[in-house]
């Protein structure tokens, strides 16, 4: 039986969402004067057409009276979903007005890609895109990444308020941000540290690489946002390889790894709690996954004969593997070369890394290394049960930042459900692509679908401007499902159904 949510629930969700939309829209509005300074008058007015009504509606939304603003679990998760979708709608307006998108669906696709830190793009003529819209894309990545961390915080608080146990399958970051004030400060510090490191490091590296001073600030901002938030949007068709610099690639690797490492682990690293990090199960799986994907990619590149020397194999292999596991989706080569020049094994290793993704409690996508690890532990536990004498009790545990947890069936079930939903999403996305265009190879379709649902954004030339509306819609939904870990979308749909059909 469904219970209809109260009017107060709806009001509280609108108010909380309005706050998120207000911050996001003010950020877009602030880009308008920047566009004017850059001499892009039409982009400036496009930014205002998108941001101004959103600011007005958000301010009005925050005035809706409600008796309780308490963020329960349901309210928090529905708020997260509605905020993400509303922000994407706001960002889609200036993108659509730029004239670089075939239709509204393509602009909305790009907006969702931006706020979900995916990096896919259906922009036509990217290399002539106004610079203020490149900055808009970077703002979407930063806002989306920061919101992902803060929403995790809110959900954690909601779970605590309801005094229920936390399971690793519950959305994200269950252990990374204890205590709102402390956790928020820690999250801010993480974002600031990544941002400052990135701007200084990448800026210097780009300058040495020969990027002219006039374009250095915007190029630096867009690359840092793309790597540190795992957003992966690069404002040129040549990808990272267009900078022809191993130092730039090294800096981006550092930022990608930072963006895909949980805030808890980064905070422990800052406090020099190296033992805690070493013993943290999620971190161990993360490192193991990185090593496995790296090995698979490098062996694959060597076997395929893509590169004849060790240095290029290592350079492209390391960058591609890190970009896949951190779900950043950046590449050092033109995306088509993943299919035409990387052989079979290397792309297979990369797809596996993209599906698993980075750590829970970070900005990365995928179904997460912790879930992968818990599934493996569940299998080991079952095998042990079979081998042990009847009546024997065995407890399987794992460490998370200094605390020992015991594996329960709920953990394994939750992880298995998420992984299964991811796989269904990949199959659904690939099927739609194959249906839409018979020339697309199965390998390319699977890679693109995995890339979308894992919020990776690595495209191999499959998703291009002018896609059929049902392809853009399917992949827009996949990106949202991936970012909100399915539960958010299901909860939002259930909430709407409960409003219509629920018992009062």
């Amino acid at each position, binding site marked *: 039986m469904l219970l209809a949510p109260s009017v107060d629930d709806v009001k509280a969700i609108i108010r909380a969402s309005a706050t998120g939309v207000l911050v996001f829209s003010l950020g877009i509005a602030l880009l308008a004067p920047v566009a004017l300074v850059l001499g892009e008058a039409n982009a400036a*007015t496009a930014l205002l057409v998108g941001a*101004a009504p959103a600011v007005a509606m958000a*301010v009005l939304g925050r005035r*809706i009276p409600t008796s309780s603003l308490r963020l329960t679990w349901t309210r928090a998760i529905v708020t997260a979903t509605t905020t993400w979708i509303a922000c994407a709608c706001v960002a889609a307006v200036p993108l659509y007005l730029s004239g670089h998108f075939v239709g509204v669906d393509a602009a909305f696709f790009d907006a969702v890609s931006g706020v979900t830190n995916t990096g896919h793009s259906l922009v036509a003529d990217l*290399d002539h895109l106004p610079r203020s819209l490149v900055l808009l894309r970077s703002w979407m990545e930063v806002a989306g990444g920061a919101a992902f961390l803060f929403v995790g915080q809110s959900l954690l608080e909601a779970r605590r308020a309801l005094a229920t146990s936390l399971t690793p399958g519950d959305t994200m970051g269950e252990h990374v941000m204890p205590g709102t004030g402390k956790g928020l400060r820690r999250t801010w510090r993480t974002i600031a540290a990544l941002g400052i490191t990135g701007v200084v490091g990448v800026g210097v590296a780009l300058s040495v690489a020969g990027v002219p001073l006039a374009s250095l600030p915007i*190029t630096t901002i867009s690359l840092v946002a793309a790597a540190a938030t795992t957003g992966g949007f690069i404002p040129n*068709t040549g990808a990272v390889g267009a900078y022809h610099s191993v130092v730039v690639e090294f800096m981006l690797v550092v930022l990608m790894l930072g963006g895909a490492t949980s805030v808890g682990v980064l905070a422990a690293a800052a406090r020099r709690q190296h033992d805690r990090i070493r013993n943290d199960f999620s971190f161990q799986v993360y490192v193991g996954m990185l090593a496995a994907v790296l090995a698979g990619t490098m062996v694959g590149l060597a076997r395929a004969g893509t590169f004849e020397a060790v240095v290029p194999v290592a*350079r492209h292999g390391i960058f591609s593997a890190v970009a896949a596991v951190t779900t950043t989706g950046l590449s050092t080569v033109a995306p088509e070369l993943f299919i*035409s020049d990387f052989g079979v094994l290397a792309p297979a290793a990369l797809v596996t890394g993209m599906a698993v993704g980075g750590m829970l409690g970070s900005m990365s996508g995928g179904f997460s290394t912790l879930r992968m690890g818990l599934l493996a532990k569940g299998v080991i536990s079952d095998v042990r049960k079979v081998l042990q004498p009847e009546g024997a009790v065995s407890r399987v545990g794992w460490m998370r930042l200094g605390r020992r947890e015991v594996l329960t069936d709920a953990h394994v079930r939750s992880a298995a459900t998420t992984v299964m939903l991811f796989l269904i999403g990949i199959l659904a996305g690939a099927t739609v692509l194959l249906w839409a265009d018979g020339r697309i190879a199965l390998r390319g379709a699977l890679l693109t679908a995995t890339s979308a649902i894992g919020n990776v954004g690595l495209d191999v030339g499959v998703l291009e401007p*002018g896609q059929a509306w049902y392809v853009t819609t399917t992949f827009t939904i996949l990106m949202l499902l991936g970012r909100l870990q399915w539960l958010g979308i299901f909860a939002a749909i259930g909430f709407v159904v409960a409003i219509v059909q629920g018992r009062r």
Partner: protein
Amino acid sequence: MTTPRTRHRLLIAGFIAALAVIGIGVQWSHDAAPRVPLDVVPAGAEDPESVEARTLTCERTLPDAPTRDLEEVEPVGRVSSEAVNSCPDAFDGQVVVYYGEVVGDVLQRDGGAWTLVNDDAYALTLGPLSGHGDFEGGNSGLAVWLPGQLATLADEPGNADRRGDVLRVNGVVRRADPEDGGGLTLRAIQAEVVFEAQYLETPVNRVQALVAAVFTLVAIGVVVWDRRLRARR
């Protein structure tokens, strides 16, 4: 005195009406975008894409296959970036002719410069999208190394304001260029500017400016009203 139910209905109706007004404003602005297309670049009319290049296969060269010296390599004529990216192995070491627009940043290095040279429709035929609004897929290009004095040719790369210099490059395709850490490159032997950079003269979209002004004024009005109400409390 209105009941809560009526108030809620009015709120929802107001919200839908606001969305409709915003939607009309956005679509009106979009449709009113002025277009001033650039000239079609007659680049490469005398160099149609080579038949020989199209007949090359995409089979990968095995790592132990004998390597060829540059002197042995026969020119294959004009190629497109799409063909080279789809079939890099077939063009490895070949001397080719390539036409394209310099875009993005020109990276000056010792002994030359790296450029990104696009040969898609926005580069060669139609010009930047904002000038005409006709969609012709995405961008496509090659990384081109311009050695020595050739680096000075690419002094006006394309961006949102202009179509950059269009070059005719005669060079060697390197599938895994050892001097670029294994990147796919075109190393220019000769290059010339066949079409100078051309600036877009896109006028301001007046309808969009009007809609933006109205929306901004409304937003400022709502914010001021909200602040006054808060100050009263």
